Each structure stands twice: as structure tokens, then as C-alpha cells.
């Protein structure tokens, strides 16, 4: 007998229906707040320099344009719209991250990304809470700083801990030879994922904010208690990381410097160097309005809504059946 391929969906009809309701809820939420829905390319000319994100290369060949990237996030295109004067915008789109597959990851997933002009990270956190708690009917999140969370659950102060003590703490998960070439931020990521995250948001949702400046990505930086922290936040519910938000960096030189630093890190980690998105930088040069932006994983939001720990339960066809 021939082996039948798994052709059936992994999500129940109820989960599919919940997804449709979730999309309608999101669109209603933003319509009420007069935020414009936009669509930007899923297939872009450039990828990202982010050291820990890999897009998927597409063998594009169309009248002289060769090669493209399935986007890891609609961020750069949306910021170009903002620079062009779109005002506040949102988008529900498919995004792609190579290599990420598991109970909480599918290489292709749905992202809700939105930008609010003249919002700070603080104001945007309130709006994230309105949206998420409105949909999940959960209590509003408490806010815990990255430093406080690390001290509480990992037992180290991320801003002052010595490399030796940090490595010692990481020994619970990694061997000394594995730690040799792991950066300080890599160690902190390990502790965040294994020691802190599982405890986050089990009672009520939790925002983590004030990340170390070294993990700022595209966020502004300011000084808190004498330490440089990023205006970046993440929301955790039931130990699941739901979104990542920034008070956006608007300075073009700083932006270029961070891309170049990313590429140096990529090379050091044996990853291919990525072409810097000059169209994006030109838009920032032209002027990104003061804004805050956030990307939220819609599949994970739906996992929380239907009460599952497995992303396949909310996807019609996860990669293995796609």
C-alpha cells in the first residue's frame, strides 16, 4: 500500500474560525483608532542584517531583477511609508524566518505590525495591552524591567555581572566549551529563554522593558539608574513571547552604524554578510517621523486564545504539511 501524505489540516475548524474572528477584531480595533491598514512586499529586494534572523532567499528572475528575500518582517517597507507621510499604519502579513520550526515556531507565520506616530514606547505599551487584553479578555499586564526580571528569576544583575559569574550561571545549560564563543548577549538570551521566560506571565501578562542597550536593535537608548537601556519592550503571557516593540530610532547615521555592526557580528558567527537596504536608509535620511512600533505574533496570540501550546493547532498547514 502506498503511504498517503498527510493532506488534512492540523487546525480544527473552530481554530480556523477563531483566526478569522481574530483578524476581524484586529481590523475593527484599528479602524476605531483611525490607523490605516497597508500592504507591503512579502518578497523584497533586500534581507535583514539582524545577526540572529535569517530570511529565505528567493530565486527571483524578472526582467533584470534577480534574487529576492522573503521578508522577516515588514518593518523597513512600513518605515518607508511612514517617512513618505503615511501617518500611523498597521499590517497583517506573512513573514518568514529560516530555520525556526518547533512547537512555537513555523518558518512562515502571521505577524501584526503597527506604527504610531508621536507615540512613545510607553504609550504604545498601553495600546498593545488594549488590543491583547481586549481580545483575550485577560488582566492588564504588569511592567517589569529586564534588569528586575533577570535579578528575580535568573539571579544575576545583567548590567554588572562579571563574565565569569555569567558563564558560571549558564553552566546549568551549556558546557564550558560551548560558552567559549558565546557573546555576553548570547548568555543573557540563554538565561532569558531558560530561566526567566517560563516564569513570565503565568499569573498576569508581563511587559519586560528597558533592555540592555546592546540588545536595542532599532530602538532609542537612554540612561536609567546610570545604565544605558533601550526603549524596547516585549509582552509575555503564559511564558510565551508575544510581541517586540520599540520607540523607533530615527537617526540615519546611527542606523547605518548598527547595520554595519550587525554584519560584523554575522561574519564573526560564520553567517553570510547581508546587503544593507539603502532604500530604507534613504527613507530614514529623508526623515522618519517620531514614532513607536511593535510586531506581534498572531499565531501565538491565537494559541493563547484557543488554549494550546502547539502552533500546529492554529495553522491550517504547518511546514511539514505545507
Amino acid at each position, binding site marked *: 500500500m502506498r503511504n498517503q501524505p498527510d493532506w488534512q489540516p492540523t487546525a480544527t475548524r473552530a481554530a480556523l474560525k477563531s483566526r478569522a474572528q481574530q483578524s476581524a477584531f484586529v481590523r475593527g480595533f484599528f479602524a476605531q483608532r483611525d490607523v490605516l491598514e497597508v500592504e507591503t512586499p512579502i518578497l523584497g529586494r533586500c534581507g535583514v542584517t539582524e545577526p*540572529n534572523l535569517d530570511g529565505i532567499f528567493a530565486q527571483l528572475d524578472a526582467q533584470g531583477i534577480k534574487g529576492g528575500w522573503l521578508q522577516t518582517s515588514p518593518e523597513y517597507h512600513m518605515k518607508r511609508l511612514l517617512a513618505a507621510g503615511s501617518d500611523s499604519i498597521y499590517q497583517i502579513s506573512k513573514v518568514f524566518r529560516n530555520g*525556526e520550526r518547533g512547537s512555537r515556531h513555523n518558518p512562515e507565520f502571521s505577524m501584526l505590525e503597527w506604527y504610531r506616530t508621536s507615540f512613545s514606547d510607553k504609550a504604545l505599551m498601553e495600546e498593545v495591552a488594549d488590543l491583547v487584553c481586549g481580545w483575550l479578555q485577560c488582566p492588564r499586564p504588569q511592567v517589569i524591567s529586564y534588569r528586575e526580571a533577570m535579578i528575580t528569576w535568573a539571579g544575576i544583575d545583567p548590567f554588572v555581572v562579571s563574565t565569569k559569574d555569567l558563564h558560571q550561571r549558564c553552566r546549568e545549560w551549556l558546557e564550558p566549551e*560551548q560558552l567559549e564563543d558565546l557573546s555576553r*548577549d548570547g548568555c543573557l*538570551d*540563554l538565561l532569558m*529563554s531558560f530561566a526567566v521566560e517560563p516564569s513570565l506571565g503565568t499569573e498576569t501578562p508581563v511587559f519586560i522593558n528597558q533592555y540592555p542597550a546592546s540588545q536595542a*536593535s532599532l530602538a532609542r537608548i537612554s540612561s536609567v539608574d546610570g545604565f544605558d537601556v533601550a526603549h524596547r519592550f516585549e509582552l509575555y503571557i503564559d511564558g510565551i513571547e508575544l510581541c*517586540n516593540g520599540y520607540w523607533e530610532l530615527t537617526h540615519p547615521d546611527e542606523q547605518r552604524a548598527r547595520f554595519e555592526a550587525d554584519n560584523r557580528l554575522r561574519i564573526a558567527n560564520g553567517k553570510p554578510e547581508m546587503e544593507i537596504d539603502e532604500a530604507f536608509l534613504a527613507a530614514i535620511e529623508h526623515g522618519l517621523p517620531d514614532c513607536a512600533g511593535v510586531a506581534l505574533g498572531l499565531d501565538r496570540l491565537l494559541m493563547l486564545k484557543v488554549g494550546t501550546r502547539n502552533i500546529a493547532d492554529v495553522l491550517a498547514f504547518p511546514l511539514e504539511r505545507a
Partner: protein
Amino acid sequence: MASYSTNEFRGGLKVLLDGDPCIIVENEIVKPGKGQAFNRVKLRNLMTNRVWDRTFKSGESLEAADVMDHDMEYLYTDGEFWHFMLTDGSFEQYAADAKAVGDTIKWLKEQDVYTVTLYNGAPLTVTPPNFVELEVVETDPGMKGDTAQGGSKPATLSTGAVVSVPLFITIGEVLKVDTRSGEYMNRVKS
């Protein structure tokens, strides 16, 4: 030998860890949005059968273990080794020691076919088929008329395995037994 990076890790993959051949049971990616990704991996050590939980940085790799499953016919034992022969027509023979044979010893019947796992060319484990058919060599006398309900008794099979069987089973009958649970399934008409 080839090696596998964390992206290639999947259930069933055989790799070398701390010098021992292991089979990957589970691989879970753990990754903060923009941060370093890690893989939480469950592996079963094929030498000890112990399950290990290990964490890897994404991109790390493990050497592939030269572990292969082969169908082999059981030939005989000389008391120290159990001898098997490949069924692919090569007549190549392998000697498995007591450690490799393990609990399978109680299901070994000459001329039956078993899965012999070779590690670097030497038998590492011997796995019986899910079902074997063996003759009863010892059991209490059968009770006539008691064919359907209730009651069981031990029966010793030709290989030495003892299984629980219904009361009507008699010496000389051939039984089908599930080797995973050690349970009697049914009588086999011979």
C-alpha cells in the same frame, strides 16, 4: 563521517555525543525574537539507553554516528556470543555479545529474523520483531471447555520466555506473542 547542524536535528537522527552513539528523540528550538537561538534536545544514549537533555547553540553540530539497522537471521549461540547472518544474500555473519542481545535473549529463535543495530560495524543492540511465534514447552494441563472467559496461567515458551496465557493452552501449541509488552495474542494454527 558527516556531521549534522542543529537545523538538521530531527527525531531518529543518530549522532555522537560525548563519544557515545545517541538517537535524537526530540528537538525544540528556543529563541527570543531577535536574540540568540538555542536548541533543547532530548537524546537517547544507545549504549546505556539513558535519555539526555542537552542544550545547543543553534548552528552547533554533532558528528553523525555510524549506526545502521540491518535485518539478520539468528543462527546459534556458543554460550558467549550470539551469531547472526545478514539476510541480503551476502551470508555475512556478526557476533553479538550478551550486552547487545540484552532482554531480546528470551525471544531468540533460530532462523527467525531480528533487527541488529551495528555501531562502527559491531552489533550494538538486537531488537525482536513486534510479534514472534513460539511453541509452548511447559504449562499446567489445559482445562477442557474453558475456552472463553477468565483465568490465566504461566506458560514457558521454547526460548525460555514465560508469558501469561489462557487456561486452555496446552504444551506443543504455537503462540503469537507481542514482544513489546510480552503479552500473549493468540494461538497459531500449525
